[in-house]
């Protein structure tokens, strides 16, 4: 299905890099490197140059921490979205938020996508997406509370649960008026999941792809990668890229990433091997 992300449309054989841009002082990977607005803007410039089709701007780290209310979240991301929109009129801008109140502000500033990493915690977020003709990312968290870590959570079948919940969320978004071509599902690795759950979701991602909804994967430097290899944050790139390759073979469409250029190469290579993408330029043995 053609994917419509706000002002841009993408054919169904196109993969997209969604670059993470944190307007936070405490996110797990960059630890505040782009907390200052100018630093965050420099990061946008950098990832656009690297070929990212989407930036995902977030004002609150996912892990537990200092309470950030909606007003503070808006202070962090609202006008920044407007600044990015002015500088990059054609760039797809996503905002990582679960709050409808925040969604309304960022859409008015020019956001194209609402990335609801917390799986519908605010049920009115879909109404904002519909009102602004924005896209929405429907994630699976297993029903956990926003900004909590998983603790002794179990699933009879984590893939079945992820499919059931995200598809139900997608249908709810469509019923609220979101364009069906603007709805994406995301198994949300590590959110409400232990490492074994995230690995199984990666291994069986084709089952989510088979739903027909475009699938986003957010794998970048996460704990399931770190625990798989016993490596700390900062040493997880190769593991992230391996998981990205498997996801690409299974047919994931959007990759939420810290490292744009590296992930683009891996995803393209995986899709070339899978036969979905032609080699970039082939002459060996063919001259």
């Amino acid at each position, binding site marked *: 299905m053609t994917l419509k992300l706000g002002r841009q449309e993408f054919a169904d054989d196109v993969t997209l890099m969604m670059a993470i841009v944190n307007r936070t002082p405490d996110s797990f990977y960059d630890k505040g490197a782009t907390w200052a607005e100018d630093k965050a803007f420099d990061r946008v410039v950098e990832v656009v140059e690297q070929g990212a089709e989407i930036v995902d701007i977030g004002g609150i780290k996912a892990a537990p921490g200092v309470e950030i209310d909606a007003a503070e979240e808006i202070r962090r991301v609202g006008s920044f979205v407007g600044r990015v929109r002015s500088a990059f009129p054609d760039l797809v801008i996503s905002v990582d938020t679960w709050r409808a109140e925040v969604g309304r502000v960022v859409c008015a500033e020019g956001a194209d996508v609402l990335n609801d990493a917390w799986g519908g915690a605010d049920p009115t977020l879909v109404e904002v997406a519909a009102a602004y003709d924005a896209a929405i990312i429907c994630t699976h968290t297993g029903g956990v509370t926003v900004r909590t870590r998983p603790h002794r959570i179990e699933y009879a079948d984590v893939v079945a649960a992820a499919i059931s919940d995200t598809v139900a969320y997608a249908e709810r978004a469509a019923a609220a008026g979101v364009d069906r071509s603007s709805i994406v599902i995301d198994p949300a690795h590590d959110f409400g999941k232990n490492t074994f759950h995230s690995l199984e979701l990666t291994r069986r991602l084709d089952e989510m792809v088979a739903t027909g909804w475009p699938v986003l994967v957010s794998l970048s430097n996460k704990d399931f990668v770190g625990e798989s290899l016993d490596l700390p944050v900062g040493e997880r790139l190769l593991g992230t890229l391996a998981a990205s390759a498997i996801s690409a073979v299974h047919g994931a469409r959007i990759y939420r990433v810290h490292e744009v250029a590296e992930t683009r190469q891996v995803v393209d290579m995986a899709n070339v091997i899978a036969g979905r993408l*032609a080699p970039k*330029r*082939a002459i060996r*043995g*063919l*001259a």
Partner: protein
Amino acid sequence: MVPGAPALLTAYAGRLDPLSDVRAAAVEAVRWLVDGADEVRVWCAPLSDPDRDRGVTVAQGERIARDLLGAAAFGGRVSLVEPGCVDAVPVLVVANGSARRSEKAPGHLDERSHDFDAAVEKALADGDAKTLAGIDLALGAELLATGLHGLRALGQQQPVRTSLDLADDPFGVRYWVARWSWS
């Protein structure tokens, strides 16, 4: 006449075309060739024994000819025939010069390749049938030139008009796109 480069096949198309100029010239020449025709003959190198041993059934040159005819939107009859006399039916010759023109070339460098290609190229441009008819097939084979039987057959009759549309060797293989007409 078009080159026998498999990179021209749609089956081997990448996202970027390493032979975009060659392809454009070849398709344009083929379009000219088949304008108003309902049949075209193809002269190309026959299926090689090693390829046949690997289970291949259609010669690369024939596949390239059919692809280019398709790109030129030709919907008429295509027949693969032994090179011979030219009559009213248009002939698409699939041939190229040496594949040993540089150290990076498919067959590595053979210093003789440049003189060999230069002679053929001048003959194609000038309509020098006699030179084409006398191409040294044994030397051409050593230099990995292909489709030379077709070029020799072209030399059986003096053309009235000729055009060398393209001559290039981007990957160490000499490519030509040329038009000859006898009327």
